């Protein structure tokens, strides 16, 4: 009977069942009395996928891990399994995934795993076994990772588990939601996107009242365009402000710091403090204009020698520090 069923199985499923055969053989070898539950489950070929779980889980003496279909996760004793017993269960995962979820739809919480094939592939490269054995090591490592994950994340009720370094994302289906692998993947993707949209909502002003992705995207696009336009305008302004080639910014800042004798300037310190105060107030009063005037005259005089001594002044470190404090004050005043 077993032979016939095996042939049946071979017809329906290709590699999975061959592994399953080997698994059965192994289990037979390990546990002579094991044949009966498996035979029972094999006899009903229609129940193959669903039966696999129930059959396995029904047998306590097997020390198999409870993966699917149960709300409770067994602790360590179940998870400490010899590798041979696990052969083939891993490969079932993908196929079992959908069918098992259909089975267990009624149950409250499921642990569904999204497998990372490439991570497994890495481990495959490490082990130089044949393909079948590779499958088994795949499954073993998946089991172990999953087991660890379950232990770690058992306390989480209906939330997504954080990502291990093995790059698994373990998601629990929440109550009353579809447990399809596809819909879960969809949900994960949607949550990712909505999380980022929330960040954008905080960033873009006036987006709080708008609901819906399209409207928010509109706002975001408008905002980015307006920012870029502002930058264009400001760069044009900066280009206009310095039409003369000898107009050097160093002048402005160095004049404040350098204590060059200027007839018009009452005292360098006063000018400096006046300037910085103006920056703090972020207003442009007469003092500011006068300081501009004051700077202007010496600038006319030191036209030709503008760059060199002033750049050296800059390099002294005095100017930059002044500039830094200016900027600090500026930004403080601008309400940042």
């Amino acid at each position, binding site marked *: 009977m077993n032979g016939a069923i095996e042939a049946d199985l071979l017809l329906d499923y290709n590699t999975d069942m061959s592994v399953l055969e080997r698994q059965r053989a192994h289990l037979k070898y390990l546990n002579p009395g094991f044949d009966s539950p498996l035979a029972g489950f094999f006899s009903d070929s229609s129940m193959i996928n669903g039966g696999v779980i129930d059959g396995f889980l029904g047998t306590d003496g097997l020390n198999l891990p409870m993966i699917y279909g149960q709300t409770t996760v067994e602790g360590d004793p179940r998870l400490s399994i010899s590798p041979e017993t696990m052969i083939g269960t891993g490969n079932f995962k993908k196929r079992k995934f959908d069918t098992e979820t259909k089975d267990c739809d009624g149950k409250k919480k499921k642990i569904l795993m999204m497998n*990372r*094939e*490439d*991570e497994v592939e890495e481990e495959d490269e490490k082990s130089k076994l044949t393909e079948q054995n590779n499958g088994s090591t795949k499954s073993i490592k998946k089991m172990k990772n999953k087991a660890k994950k379950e232990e770690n994340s058992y306390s989480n009720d209906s939330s997504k588990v954080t*990502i291990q370094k093995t*790059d698994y*994302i373990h998601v629990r289906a929440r109550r009353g939601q579809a447990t399809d692998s596809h819909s879960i993947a969809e949900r994960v*993707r949607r949550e*990712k*996107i909505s*999380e*980022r949209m929330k*960040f*954008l909502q*905080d*960033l873009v002003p006036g987006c709080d009242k708008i609901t819906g992705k*399209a409207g928010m*995207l*509109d706002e*975001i*696009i408008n*905002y*980015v*365009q307006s*920012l870029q336009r*502002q*930058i*264009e305008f*400001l*760069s*044009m*302004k*900066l*280009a*206009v*402000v*310095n039409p003369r*080639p000898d*107009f050097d*910014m*160093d002048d*402005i800042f160095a004049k404040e710091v350098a204590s060059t004798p200027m007839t018009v300037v009452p005292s360098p310190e006063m000018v400096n403090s006046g300037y910085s105060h103006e920056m703090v107030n972020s207003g442009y009063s007469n003092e500011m*204009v006068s*300081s*501009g*005037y004051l700077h*202007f005259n010496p*600038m006319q005089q030191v036209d030709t020698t503008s*760059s060199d001594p002033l750049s050296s002044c800059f390099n002294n470190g005095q100017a*930059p520090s002044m*500039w*830094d404090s*200016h*900027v*600090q004050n*500026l*930004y*403080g005043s*601008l309400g*940042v």
Partner: protein
Amino acid sequence: MVNSNLFPSIEATGGESSTESRRKKPRISETEAEIEARRINEESLKRWKTNRVQQIYASKLVEALRRVRQRSTNEPDKVVSVAAREIRETADRVLAASAKGTTRWSRAILASRVRAKLKKHKKAAKKSAGNCKSRKAAATETNRIKLPAVDRKLKFLGRLVPGCRKVSVPNLLDEATDYIAALEMQVRAMEALAELLTAAAPRTTLTGP
């Protein structure tokens, strides 16, 4: 030096994005990028607002603008628009440099200049323009039916953010977040600078005879 370091990273990210369409490969890069993206998101709202960042940006901007101006003194006959474009590109580059290469748009900005130079040297500009046009025409002819509104807008957003045309949706939103924060900072810095300069500029010329 910076650009040469950035090139391999750009190629790598380009490779990553192209393999994302395949089923098997992308998951690792996705999840690693996921952690990175979340970190970027949480940080970006703050990192472009700190005083220190603004100071760094402002000082770098000043330096760069000074250099640009010194260079432009050699060619005094520049139209305002050309000068404005130069200044804007400089400011963008400084902004991208202060992003320290963690974001895609910053890498794209820094690389675009080098790429433009290379193209100029190789005189491949005409060729690439021709290719682009033909590819575009073919694409629009096949995709006559308009994409849904959200997708259209996402595409447009991808065109706005430099270097993010073929980026996946969540990554695009990440990049957009960081880009917006950075742009805001840039606007503030340039505004302050412009005000400083216009205030300190020779008033006599502005206020009359």
